[in-house]
C-alpha cells in the first residue's frame, strides 16, 4: 500500500501561533485543514514535510450581515454549499462549493483549503515512483516542465472551483501572520505560476472569506468535468452579473482550470457592461472570455476540446446567472443532480 510518511503533527490554538510555527519551520512544515488534497499528496511524495500544522482551531461560522457575509476558513465545503444565506445571496458561491470533489470529501474539505488548493498537472499528480520513471518535473524534484519542455515555467493548472467564484463576487480574504492580520482581494491571492501559485506568505493562515453584498448581483458557477461525482474542474466559469432589465450594469467573469491561476475575463466584462443580454451578446462575450484560455495537454480529455468548451461553460454560466431561479440551460455531464 501507499503509506503516509512520518511527520510531526502540531496543534496551535490560534492563527498567530500557527503562523509563528510555520515561519519557524519554513518549508519543512505545511498547514492542514481538511487534508483531502494534502494527504494523498504526502503519500505520493509531492509534498515532503517534517511537520503538519493543524488548522482545526479555525472557526466554522458563516456570518450573514447586511453588507457582507463572512465565511470562516474552517467551514466545510458541504456546509457552505448547504448554507441558506449563501445560497440565496451568493448562489454561485454555494454552487461552486457544492461541486468540489465528492460528497465525502466535501464533508471534510474546507473553503479555505479549496481557495488555496494546489495547482494540478497529470505529470505531477502521480506517485514518486511514476514521476521518477518519467523524469521529475520542475514542480517537484526536477527542473523541466514535461508538458511544455521548452518553457521556463510550470504550467500546472489552477483547480479551485470556489476561488474563481469568490473573485467574481469581489471577495476578500483575511490572512493572519505572526505579526498581525491583513486583508487581500481574492483576485490578489493568486499568481500566474504553477509552482508559486499563491501570493500569500507561506506562513500566513487564511482565516476567512468575506463576500460583499452587491445589490442586484446574480451569480452562477458552471463546472466541466468528466464525472459529476468527483473530478476536479477541466474548465469552469464563475459569473456574477447585475442587470437593469435586460441591460448588464455590472459583470465579472472568471474562468477556472484554464491557466495556473483563476483567469479573469476583463475584456468580456467590459464588452457586456452596458449591453443587452441576449443570445448574441452572450455568445460574443463567451468568445472574448475564452480567447485567453490556453489549456495544455496536462489534464483530462484533449486540450483542443477543452479549449472549445470554455466558450460553452461561459455561455452557460452567463445564462444561469441571468435566469437565476429560472434554471440553467443545458444539461452537462458535470452537473449531477444532488
Amino acid at each position, binding site marked *: *500500500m*501507499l*503509506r503516509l*510518511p*512520518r511527520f510531526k503533527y502540531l496543534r496551535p490554538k490560534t492563527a498567530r501561533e500557527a503562523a509563528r510555527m510555520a515561519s519557524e519551520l519554513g518549508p519543512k512544515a505545511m498547514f492542514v485543514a481538511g487534508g483531502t488534497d494534502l494527504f494523498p499528496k504526502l503519500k505520493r511524495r509531492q509534498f515532503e514535510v517534517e511537520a503538519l500544522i493543524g488548522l482545526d482551531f479555525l472557526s466554522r461560522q458563516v456570518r450573514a450581515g447586511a453588507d457582507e457575509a463572512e465565511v470562516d476558513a474552517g467551514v466545510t465545503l458541504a456546509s457552505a454549499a448547504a448554507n441558506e444565506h449563501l445560497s440565496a445571496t451568493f448562489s454561485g458561491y454555494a454552487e461552486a462549493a457544492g461541486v468540489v470533489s*465528492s460528497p465525502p470529501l466535501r464533508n471534510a474539505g474546507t473553503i479555505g483549503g479549496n481557495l488555496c488548493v494546489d495547482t494540478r498537472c*497529470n505529470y505531477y*499528480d*502521480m*506517485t514518486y*515512483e*511514476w514521476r*521518477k*520513471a*518519467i523524469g521529475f518535473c520542475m514542480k517537484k524534484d526536477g527542473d523541466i516542465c514535461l508538458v511544455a519542455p521548452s518553457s521556463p515555467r510550470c504550467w500546472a493548472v489552477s483547480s479551485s472551483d470556489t476561488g474563481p467564484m469568490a473573485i467574481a463576487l469581489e471577495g476578500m480574504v483575511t490572512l493572519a501572520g505572526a505579526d498581525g492580520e491583513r486583508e487581500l482581494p481574492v483576485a490578489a491571492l493568486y499568481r500566474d505560476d504553477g509552482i508559486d501559485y499563491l501570493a500569500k506568505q507561506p506562513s500566513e493562515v487564511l482565516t476567512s472569506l468575506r463576500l460583499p453584498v452587491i445589490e442586484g448581483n446574480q451569480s452562477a458557477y458552471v463546472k466541466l468535468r*468528466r*464525472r*459529476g*461525482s*468527483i*473530478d476536479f474542474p477541466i474548465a469552469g466559469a464563475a459569473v456574477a452579473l447585475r442587470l437593469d432589465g435586460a441591460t448588464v450594469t455590472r459583470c465579472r467573469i472568471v474562468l477556472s482550470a484554464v491557466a495556473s491561476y483563476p483567469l479573469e475575463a476583463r475584456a468580456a466584462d467590459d464588452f457586456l457592461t452596458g449591453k443587452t443580454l441576449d443570445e448574441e451578446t452572450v455568445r460574443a462575450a463567451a468568445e472574448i472570455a475564452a480567447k485567453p484560455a490556453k489549456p495544455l495537454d496536462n489534464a*483530462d*480529455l*484533449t486540450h*483542443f*476540446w477543452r479549449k*472549445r*468548451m470554455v466558450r*460553452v461553460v461561459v455561455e452557460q454560466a452567463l445564462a444561469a446567472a441571468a435566469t437565476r431561479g429560472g434554471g440553467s440551460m*443545458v*444539461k*452537462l*455531464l458535470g452537473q*449531477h443532480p*444532488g
Partner: protein
Amino acid sequence: MGASNNGFSVIGKPLPKPDAVSKVTGRAIYADDMLPARTLHCRILRSPHPHARIVSIDTSAARRMPGVQAVITGADLPIKFGILPVTQDERALEHEKVRYVGDPIAAVAAVDEEIAASACDAISVEYEVLEPVMSIDEALVETKDERIQDYGGPNNIHKLVALEFGDVDAGFARADHTREDVFFFQGNTHLPMEQHSAVATFVDGRVTLWSSTQVVHYVHRALAKVLELPMNRIRVIGAAHGGGFGGKTDPFAHEIIVSKLAMLTGRPVKCTLTREEVFYAHRGRHPVLMWVRTGVTKDGRITAMHFRSALDGGAYGSYGVASTFYTGALQTVTYDIPAYRFEGCRVFTNKPPCGPKRGHGTPQPRFALELHLEKIAHDIGLDPVELKQRNFVKPMTRTVNWLRVTSCGLEECTERVLNASGFRKREKKRGHGMGFAISSYLSGAGTAIYWNDMPHSEVQIKVDRGGVTAYCGAMDIGQGSDSVLAAIVAEELGIQPADVRLVTADTDTTPIDLGSYSSRVTFMAGNAAIQAARKMREMLVEAAAAKMGAPVEAVAVGGGRIGDFSFEDASILAEARFGTLTSAGSYTPPKIAGPYKGSGVGPSPAYSYSACVVDLDADPRTGLVHLNKVWIAHDVGRAINPLLVEGQVEGSVYMGLGEALMEEQEFRKGLHKWPSMLEYKSPTFLDMPEVETFIVETVDPEGPYGAKEAGQGPLLPVIPAVSSAVFDALGVWIDEIPVTPEKIVEALRRKEKGEAARFGPARFPSIPYPACIKVEPPAKELDRAAPASI
C-alpha cells in the same frame, strides 16, 4: 424482476448473500487485514523503463538498511511461469530484461512497509535502455533494437491464427450486398476495489499463502513450479475477496515473492499492491483493432463473414492465446453465419500484459459486430433490429465453427427490452437516441487451462451431528458462488442455506475447482454440488425409511425434515447406519470441441444470452453524453438466486458503460498515462443511470436446475448499444471505444465537411496471417436423442 419458483424451496428465492453482513460491516478478513505475529512487509522494485536490458543490480545498500530482513532478485526465482502452458514467459522478478514500466525487478522484506519502500529506492539497477514498442503498428514491423520476447514472430507478433469454416468465398459470391468496416476497442482495466494482496507463511517446511485470487488451483501449480516444492507442501487459501473481474486470474509475481521471502526469513510476509501497481499487474481488456466483411442477401440473411483482429497484448503471454481465439469465437453463437473465416493476431508491446477481463476477448468483436450489422441494415434499407432477428441462432443447433447451442433466449430477451423501452416507437429527435444490441457468453470454458482429464469441479459434503458442511475449491469473488453452493445443498437436503457451512477455495481442505473465471462456477460447481447433495440425501432418506418401516419413496424431504424425523435426528440415524456420512460429486463438461486445432476456445456446456437498449442524450455542440436509462434482459437459464443475478447484470451494465464512455488504458512516453483511480476515469455510482433488468429463464437442459451464467454476458451488449444510441441521436458512427465527447464533436465536424460521418480507425494493417485451416462445418441440427458430446 420475478423469477419462477416451480416447487423449489430455496432455488429461485432472492436471498441475501451469506457473507453480505460481514462484508458491509468490515468484518470480512481480506488478505490485507491479516497480520500474523512477526509479519514482515514486502515492497517490490519495478522497472522505470518500458524496454531495457538489466546490466547489473546492486542491492548492497538496501541490505544494510536497519529493519531490512531480506532482499531478493530474479536470480533467486529464475524459473519461468505463466497461466497457459504454451506461454511460460514470466518471472516473478526479472534479472535479465524488463519489458514494461512496472515489471518487477527486486523485492524487499522489512519490519515495516516504509523501510521496505526506502530499501527498494536504495537498490541501484544499471540498464541498457532499448527502443520500446508501444503500438500494434510498431509491433508488426522490424524493431530498432530487439524483440520484446524471444518467441513468436515475425517481429513482435506473438500469435497468429487463421480458421475457415465452410466455403466463405462461395458465401460472398452469393451475397447481394457486402460491406467492410474497421473498428477499434481501446484497452481498459478491471479496477477492483481491493488491490491484490497476499500473505505467506513458511512453517514446518510448508508454505501457506492467503491471497486475493480468483484461481487458487492455478496459483498452487505456479508456486510449486517456481519454488520447486511438491504441491503437497504448499497450501493456497483464497482470502475474502474484494473483486477481480478477471484481473486476479493469473498467478502473480507478488504471490510467488512473498512465499519465497517467507521461506528465506521464516517469518510471515505480506505484500499488498499499491493502486498504481494494480494498473501494472493489469491483465485487462486487450486493445483490439478489427476488420470485418460480411455478405448478406437482399432480405438481410448473412451469407458469409470474414473477421480479422489484431490484439495489443502487452509484454507477456498471460491468457493472450485464448484471448486471440475468443475475438473470433462467439460471433456465431448469436447469428447464424453459414460460412465464416477468422484471422487473429496478437502482438507484444512494452506495456503491462493484457489478459482476461469480464467477457474475455469477446466485448471487442461484439462491439464491432453489432455496429457492423446495423450499418449493413442501413445500407440495404432494412430495420437493424429486424436484420439481426432474421439471423438469430435457434436453440438446439450447432454453429458453423462447431459450437453447440442448447437453450437460447435471444428472441425473448430482445422482445423484453424492445417492449419495455418503447424502442420501436421512439421519437426521432436530434440529440436524443436509443441503441439496441445483443450478445452471448459462455457458461464456463469447456476445456481447462492445462490439459488434464480431471473433473473441472468437485464438491464434498459431510453431515455430522446434524451439521452440513460443503467443501468446494470454488472462490467467491463477490459473484456469489458461496450463495449458490449453499442454496443448492440446502435445496437438495431440505434445509436452509444458513444451515450449510461452507469450506471453499483452500487447496488443503477442498477438492479441485478450476476457479472463478469464464463464468463457470454456478454451472460446474453447481452441478457437482447437486450430485454430491443427492447422494447424501439418498443416505438420509434410506436411514429414515428404514426407521419408519416405509419405502424410500414415502420419505418427504423438506422444511428441515427427512420423513418423520428432524434433519438432525435423520443424520444420526444415517450415521449409525452408514458410518461417517460423506458424499462427493463432480462435474466434467461434455467433450464437444470441434475437430480442429484451436477448437478448445469457444465451446461451453451452455451459452447465456442478453439484449440491451440504451437511452441517452448526446449534445451536438459539446459531444457530451447523458445516459437516461438502460433496459437489459438476460437469459440466465434459471435464476438460482434472482437477487444475485440482478446484481451481476447491473454490475455488468455499470462496467460496460464505463468502458463505452470513458475508460482508457493509455500510455505516454512509455508509461501508463494515469495509473490512479482519480485520473483513470471510471464511473462512480452517482454516474449510473437507472437500469431495468429482466431475467429470462430458458431452463437449460444441462445447467444446475437449468441455470447458466450471469456474471459476464450482460456487459457485452451495453457497449455497442451506447455507440448505436449516439448514432441514433446525432447521425455519426463512433467506431472506437470509448465514445468520448471529443470523438463525437470530431465526427460531426467531418460529417459537416462532407467526409464520412464517423470517428474510428482508417485502416486495418497488413498482417502476415498464415493460410487458413479449413474446417468442414458440422450438421446444423442437434440430435436430441444422441448424447450431447461428439
